[in-house]
């Protein structure tokens, strides 16, 4: 994956550059808004990571500028501003995801991989499949190895999200945001319990595990 990082803090940018390289991606770094805009406009990036406060041209204006030129590269906004309306402004300016500083790199990596535009978009598909697990979005049914599994509505949405990003790491906050539409941090790790319940339903009585825990990051749905 080709990633453009627009971040003015040298240390943070270098760290991201190195960390993305270790994860097997290519990253380019721009240290101000104007350079970032020029690189994004000319280059063919899969995902951009843009800091909100940048010298010469701020992050939101950079994104809005790209969008007005028809550039649809997915953008993840990094910001120290984390209130609900800050997030809303960021997404309204054309950002696709919003992450508040300080963040864990595993969180950033998971989100960037989910945003990757080259990853096949499953938005239009009506049936998701992973190995012998099958989820029908229209009839709201889930089958594994031909056997129907009954899920609660929320469990269905949880599995739907996990299957849409099958093979990718999905973090707890991503689940909380996308399945429950909450952006705060619950004090107890309530998401883990939901996931283990779901896991019980889709794995119990079947041969192989399919919903994996990724240590220090989150979960991944993947057929063996």
């Amino acid at each position: 994956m080709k990633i453009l990082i627009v971040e003015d803090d040298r240390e943070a940018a270098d760290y991201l550059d190195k960390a993305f390289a270790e994860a097997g991606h290519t990253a380019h770094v721009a240290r101000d808004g104007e350079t970032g805009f020029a690189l994004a406009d000319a280059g063919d990036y899969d995902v951009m990571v843009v800091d909100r406060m940048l010298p010469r041209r701020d992050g939101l204006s950079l994104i809005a500028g790209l969008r007005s030129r028809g550039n649809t590269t997915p953008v993840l906004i990094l910001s120290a501003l984390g209130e609900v309306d800050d997030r809303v402004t960021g997404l309204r300016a054309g950002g696709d995801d919003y992450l508040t500083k300080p963040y864990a790199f595993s969180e950033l990596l998971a989100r960037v991989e989910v945003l990757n535009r080259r990853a096949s978009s499953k938005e239009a598909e009506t049936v998701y499949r992973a190995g012998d697990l099958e989820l029908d979005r229209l009839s709201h049914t889930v089958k594994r190895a031909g056997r129907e599994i009954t899920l609660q509505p929320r469990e269905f949405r949880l599995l739907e999200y996990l299957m849409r990003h099958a093979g990718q790491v999905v973090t707890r906050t991503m689940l909380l945001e996308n399945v429950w539409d909450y952006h705060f941090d619950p004090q107890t790790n309530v998401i883990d319990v939901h996931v283990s319940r779901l896991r019980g339903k889709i794995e119990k009585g079947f041969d192989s595990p399919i919903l994996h825990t990724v240590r220090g990051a989150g979960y991944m749905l993947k057929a063996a």
Partner: protein
Amino acid sequence: MALRLPAIMRTTAARLSALYFILFALCAILLVHYMTSLSASILTAQTMETINEEVQGLDRAYRRGGLPFLVRVVGQRSRQPGANLYLIADVNGRILTGNVESLEPGVLETEGWTEQPFTYQRYGEGIVERRAPNVSDLEAPSATTETRHAAIALVSRLPNQMIVLVGRDLGEPERFRVVVQRALIFALSIMAVGGLLIWYFIGRRALKRIDSISDAGKRIMGGDLSGRLPVTGAGDEFDRLSENLNTMLTRIAGLNEGLRQVSDNIAHDLKTPLTRLRNRAEAALAGNPEAEGYREALEATIAESDRLIKTFNAILMISRLEAGYSAEQLVKVDLAAATRDVVELYEPAAEELGVKLEASVDGSFMVDGNRELIGQALSNVVDNAIKYSAGADEPTVRVSVERTDGGISLKVADNGPGIPDQTDRDRATERFVRLEQSRSQPGSGLGLSLAKAVMKFHGGRLELLPGEPGLTVAMTFPEAKSG
């Protein structure tokens, strides 16, 4: 070089007084000028009318008795006291009879009305009889010094080329003009004096008020934020200004206090974990240099920093909510649905701990709110309730939404140990307060404070009520405004 006027001259009141004085004076001068010229022309017309009548009378006398009779009549009339002038002269301008001794040269050469008033000297060494019936208070012109007077006249010629002049002294309109001029000067002087007095008193009063306000302002700028501007109680514009500025100062002082509290709290509650963080890193460095030990120390460090970040976020959020953080617009939110969402989120976690999470939230209860904030507040409260009831027999947490007198009440009741003491219950929602019995539980001590701040932000309130047993947290929202 800038000319510095004394302070009182630089006040608005002074400028306004000066402006009004000039305006009124101009109006008065214009009006008086118009009136004088109007009266002067009326007087002149009257004078000319009188002269015409005289001329007609003399004309009749001439026709009746010829020149001798005319001379007699003129002689008679000349002796009568009055402002009229009579004169008969021969072709060469030699005066034959009349009451005029000498004339401005050239007057007798004119035919008809004299174009300009001319000066003359009366017969009898310049002793002039003047009548001034309406202006008796005026000083009568001294006869000895003033021998020449202005007049207008009608000059006509008899068939034998003798010249007849009938005129009238212009003393009367002249005196009228003088009267008006004096009246005008008198009125203007009174206006000037009055204006100056008003200017002085109003200007001085305004200056005194402004000075007291700006002195108070300087004290406040000097750092005494508790100072307020003086309000005299007169209810005038200065009082209103001071009151508004005072309200503003109170608000600023409140925000300032909030800021100070936040920095105190940050200093207090973040320094401790930061110190812990540092100690741990130091201990790891000093200890046995083994990969496993380092790994443990690093993981503990990350966990500690994550807790720090959470605490930091909570402090920031509470302060922004308490500062009336209004950028987040309130919208219509179904409190029942928001509650069901949180209950649903926590239900599996509660079950895991053996706590029964019961919800009786039917229907919908609309409030003006923010779903995210309500969710966060409620999840903090529910989280606490689950944590503290976990040790009880048949631990149960009941969540309910109902309409009460004061609004819509969202209650979370647990059957844990509760907080028996009223003072403790009051203190529990303060920032960083962790009651003795809860020290063993994990948490930042900010959960309830945050929930309370969220309720305050929604115009509602959060109360801790004793349960039987346990604790009930009641969050009361005001009813949604219709529309």
